[in-house]
C-alpha cells in the first residue's frame, strides 16, 4: 500500500493516490497526505485507480478527509474506482457525500 499526494492548480488542488489495499494500515499516511499541505487547497481528489480493496476504516478515513475539507461544503471527488471499490462505496451510499467519478 502506498499513498502519494500531489498539488496542482496553483496549490489549490490536491490529489491523493492510494495504491493497494486501503485499510487501517494507511491511516497515518493518508492523514499526513492532506494535513501537511498548505491551507490554500480547496479541491480534493482521491485517486483510487490502484486501490484493490477498501474496508470500513478506509470509509472512516474518507469521512475524516471530508471533515478536514470543510464538512458539508467540502469539495472531494473520488475517481478511477474499480468495480469492487465502487460497490463498497455504493453500499455505504457515499455518493451522497462525495462526487464519485
Amino acid at each position: 500500500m502506498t499513498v502519494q499526494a500531489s498539488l496542482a492548480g496553483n496549490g489549490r488542488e490536491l490529489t491523493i493516490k492510494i495504491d493497494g489495499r486501503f485499510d487501517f494500515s494507511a491511516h497515518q499516511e493518508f492523514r499526513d497526505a492532506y494535513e501537511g499541505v498548505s491551507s490554500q487547497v480547496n479541491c480534493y481528489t482521491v485517486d483510487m485507480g490502484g486501490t484493490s480493496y477498501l474496508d470500513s476504516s478506509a470509509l472512516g478515513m474518507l469521512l475524516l478527509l471530508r471533515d478536514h475539507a470543510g464538512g458539508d461544503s467540502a469539495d472531494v471527488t473520488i475517481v478511477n474506482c474499480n468495480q469492487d471499490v465502487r460497490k463498497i462505496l455504493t453500499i455505504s451510499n457515499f455518493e451522497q457525500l462525495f462526487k464519485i467519478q
Partner: protein
Amino acid sequence: MDAIRILIADDNQIDRMVLSRIVRNQGHEVYEVANGVEAIEGYSSFRPDLILMDVMMPEMNGKEATRHIKANAGEDFVPIIFLTSLTDAQSLADCLGSGGDDFLSKPYNPTILQAKISSFSRMRQMHQTLQHQRDMIASNNEHLMHEQQVAKAVFDNVAHDGCLSADNIRYMLSPLSVFNGDVLLAAQKPAGGMHVLLGDFTGHGLPAAIGAMPLAEIFYGMTAKGFAIREILREINLKLKGILPVGFFCCAVVVDLNIERKNASVWMGGVPDCYLLRNNGKVETLTSRYLPLGVLSNEQFNDDLTEFPMAEGDRLFLWSDGILEARNQNGEMFGEQRLRHIFDHAHAELDVFEQIQQQLAQFTAGSERDDDTTLIEVRMLQESIRTDLDMHLDSGPLSGPIDWEMEYRLGPDTLKNFNPLPLMIHIMMEVPGLRAMGGQLYTVMAELFSNSFEHGVLGLDSSLKNSADGFVQYYREREKQLQVLQQGHIHITLSHQGDGRSGALTIRIEDSGAGFDYGGIQGQKNPYSGRGIPLISQVCESLNYLGKGNIVEAVIRWPVSPDKRTH
C-alpha cells in the same frame, strides 16, 4: 560502568587472590568460593550478577556446577565465564557446550577481563529489560482481557438478548461480537410486533463496543415506551453522531415487523443487500438507500422506511458484511454470488438458514476465522406474539403514585408532528400495578387516540376502510389532511385512584371534531376497521362514548382478573 557482584570459584588460592584483586580494583564486589558445591551455595546466598568459574575443581567441577546454577537460575540470565589454562580448541568448545557463556585463559589479562565483564554486564541488563517488558506486556494483556470480560458483562446487561429467542427469529452471532463491532437487537413492541436492529460499527475492540451501548439502550428503552421506529432511528443517529469521533459510524439494517398489518418497514444504511424470501421461493432484494448511522446530522438524516408486505412464513434474511467477507484458505471471499446461489436454489425442503451456516463453515474450513459473521432470519407470523409479564408484586403495599390526575391538551401544530403516546405511557407506568399491563395500555391509548385524531380532528370517514382500495385511499387522505391541518385539538385526561393493592385508571380523550352517532358501533365487524374497539373492550372494564361522540372514556382496573388475560 556500574559496580556489579561477581562470584569467583577457584580451588587454587593464589589464582583466586590474583583474580579477586584485579576485579576488586575495578570496583566490583567479590565473593570467593573454592569448589563447585560452594559455588552453587554461593549463587543462592550471594546472588551474583556474573560468575568466574574454574573448570577443574575438587568435590564438583566447574562444568557440573554450571549446569546446576543455570538450572536454578531459570529464566534469569547469569553469565558464567570459565577460567582455564587449557588452550586446545576442543576443550574450550566443551566449556561453552556445558552451558558456559565464555572462557578466559590463564594467566589473566586485566584489560580483556574488564572488557568481558562490561560486555556481559550489558547483555545481562538487556536481558533484564527484555524480561521486564515481556512481563509488562503479559500483565497488560491479562488486564485487558479482564477488562473486556467486565465490559462484556456490562454490555450484556444493557444490550440483552431482548426477544431474540422468539419463535420467529433465528440468528448467528459470535460470542465476543461486541468487540468485533457487531450488534444484534430485537424487542417486542408494546402493541405487538417487533423491532429488529442489526448493526456493524467501524473498527474493532473497545471503540466499537462503546458505541454499541447507547445504541442498545436507546433501542430497547424507546421500543418499550412505544416510540415508532423512525423516532428511534433519529435518536440513535443523533446520539452516535454526537459521541462517535468523525470517521466512526454504524452500518445498520432496522426492521419494524408489523404482524397485524402483515408488513415490514425496513431502513438500511451502509449494509450489503439483504433478502426477503417468499413462501413460494421467490427472492426479493433489499438495498441500502442511506448513509450509515452517526454520519449525518439529524437535519440531513433520512428516516424514510421501505415497506414490504409479508405473508405468514415469508422470511427476511439480514447480515453484516462479515458473511460476504469471510475468507477461505486461499484468501478468497465468500462473496455475494455464493450467498445468492443458496437463495436461488431454495425450495420448501431446504432450510436456507442452515444452508448458509453449512456452506460458510465448509468455505472457511481450515482458514483463520474472522469470526464476525452475523446473520438473522425473521419470519412473519400469523398472529402477534403477546407475552403477559407476570406481576411480581411484593406482599406489602406498593409505593408509587396512587391518587392523581393529569390533563394534556394538544394543539394542531403539536398534533401534526408529535406522538404523545410514549409520554402518556411513561406516566401510567409510574403506577407499579399498571406496569405489567404496558402492552395493553399502549393498545388502548393508541387506538383511542388515533380514533379521536383521525375521525375527530381530521374528520376522516372510517367507512372508507371497508374495502382494500378504500384502505389505501384512507391513508392518502389522512396524509393530505395532516398537511393542511390548522385548527383543532385533543384533550387527554388521565386519572388514577387506588389503595396500593388494586386501582382504576380512567382515560378520557376529547377531540374538537363533530362526533358521531355511537349507538351502533359495538356490533360492527369488518376486516378493515373497527378492529380496535372489541379489542379495547376486552381490556377495559368499561368503555363509553359521551357528549356528541367526541368524548371517549375508558376505565381499566388492576390487578387484572384471570379471565381477561386470555387473548
